[in-house]
């Protein structure tokens, strides 16, 4: 919606193709607060944040919204094939913005051995059942993975009368934001056990128990440390993957590690005129940053569609150096200020962020506390001289 509004502001005609019957996507089931502080200076719930954008979209005469329309294919010529209740149709566009979000890793993705009983869910599914459909999931839950949705659902389950035994995390640190650990787990006395994971699922029709095994600090399983927790519900919060099947088939290059679309600082992908923003580009911590990305992608998509696309000259690639798990964008326009967003590989204190070109340091910044769970965004100013390429590293 942010991309649609931004494109409209630049004078483009916009079609929003939405698979759901409503706009706003996952925000509709995120009933907790904390949205909108950076952009709006207000603490809103997910539905409220989405509602503000939906109201603007509804009023915008340049934007046509087509709910219940699922895109099945985008061609390199930017023909967008959709299916809906009205049948198959094709939209022809000058520019495309992929704002397709992300999806959850499942039990299959992490290959937990055992039986296949009912009662094993991903955290987002539980959120949908509880917050939108009024369907209870179980009586006693174990949460595997300390991702933000898992932490938020731990609190929600306790408030809805479910006993949450514990949250297990395979890594030696929490994968979610520290604010969520504090206000979702510590507020309710829910234990977080690090360096542990579920090694077996037991139960015939319904989940009866899980086995839990420990790891050493290097991530090696410690045999003989297994113990059992009886529970009827296992909730997985073990990571999010950008949803890019359609973009990938259209030829958009994807990041080999994150599956996010690779972009330049205008959020244009490897296919000219195709843009990506939000969780389809990189999984964000904060919705405000998702909307900021939408602003950029929408604006440049409009420029492309209206024939005001920039010259590719004056760009330079961005490489990830030591201590960085991934960085976006992968290419920047040097004559403009850019925002570099990245995640670190390990938690640390008093680290130095260095943006360099060969032996030359272009920018240096001290970061007091870094955590893989918390995306870091830094402002990188416009450059007079083309450094050829830049490398971002954390020392």
């Amino acid at each position, binding site marked *: 919606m942010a991309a649609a509004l931004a494109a409209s502001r630049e004078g483009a005609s916009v079609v929003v193709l939405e698979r759901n019957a409503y706009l706003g996507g996952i925000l*509709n089931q995120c*009933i*907790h*607060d*904390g949205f909108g*502080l*950076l952009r709006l200076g207000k*603490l*809103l*719930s*997910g*539905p*409220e944040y989405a*509602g503000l954008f939906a109201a603007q979209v509804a009023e915008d005469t340049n934007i046509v919204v087509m709910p219940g329309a699922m895109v099945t294919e985008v061609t390199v010529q930017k023909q967008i094939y959709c299916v809906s209740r009205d049948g198959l149709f094709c939209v022809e566009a000058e520019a495309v913005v992929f704002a397709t979000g992300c999806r959850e890793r499942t039990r299959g993705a992490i290959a937990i051995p055992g039986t296949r009983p009912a009662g094993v869910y991903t955290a987002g599914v539980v959120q949908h059942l*509880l*917050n*939108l*459909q*009024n369907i209870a999931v179980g009586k006693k839950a174990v949460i595997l993975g300390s991702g933000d949705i898992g932490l938020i659902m731990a609190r929600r389950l*306790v*408030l*809805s009368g479910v006993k949450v035994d514990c949250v297990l995390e395979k890594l030696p640190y929490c994968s979610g*934001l*520290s*604010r969520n*650990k*504090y*206000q979702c787990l510590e*507020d309710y006395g829910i234990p977080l056990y690090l360096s542990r994971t579920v090694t077996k699922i037991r139960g015939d029709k319904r989940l009866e128990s899980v086995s839990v095994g420990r790891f050493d600090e290097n991530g090696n399983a410690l045999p003989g440390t297994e113990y059992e927790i009886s529970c009827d519900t296992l909730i997985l919060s073990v990571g999010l993957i950008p949803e890019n099947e359609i973009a990938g088939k259209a030829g958009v290059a994807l990041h080999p590690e994150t599956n996010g679309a690779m972009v330049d600082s205008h959020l244009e992908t490897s296919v000219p005129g195709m843009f990506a923003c939000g969780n389809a580009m990189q999984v964000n*911590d*904060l919705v*405000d940053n998702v909307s900021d990305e939408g602003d950029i992608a929408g604006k440049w998509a409009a420029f492309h569609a209206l024939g005001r696309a920039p010259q590719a000259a004056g760009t330079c690639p961005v490489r990830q150096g030591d201590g960085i798990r991934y960085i976006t964008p992968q290419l920047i326009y040097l004559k403009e200020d850019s925002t570099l967003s990245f995640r670190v590989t390990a938690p640390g204190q008093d680290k130095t962020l260095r943006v360099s070109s060969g032996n030359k340091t272009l920018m240096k910044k001290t970061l007091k*506390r870094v955590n893989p769970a*918390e995306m870091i965004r830094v402002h990188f100013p416009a450059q007079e001289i083309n450094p050829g390429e830049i490398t971002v590293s954390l020392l």
Partner: protein
Amino acid sequence: MNKEMVCVICPNSCLLTVSTENDKGQINVKNNGCPRGIEFAAREMTNPERILTSTVRMRNGALPLISVRSDRPVQKAELINLVKQLDNLIIDAPVSGGQVLVPSMGANKVNIIATREVGSKQGEI
């Protein structure tokens, strides 16, 4: 007494170290990025507060539930009890976003407001 806490006022999420200075309950806050951290820590040490968010069942709604929140923070100690009270309610559709569904709840006399609109069942197909 030293206590570590995460300030949840903004996304910076400062990791505060809070110590009680003397018997009068004066506190000393370290590692706060802004004055709001001191305010937050003081409240956490005496009477912590949180925004309540939950859902309420709907009668004749296009959706079975409406998402709600408190318009101001409630006392943390009574949050679970207030959510239980909301679980016993059924609200008639339609409801508009921002509508007050329950006025003056709990010790802080907060209003419980709808965070979205939900139309009536017959109004939508």
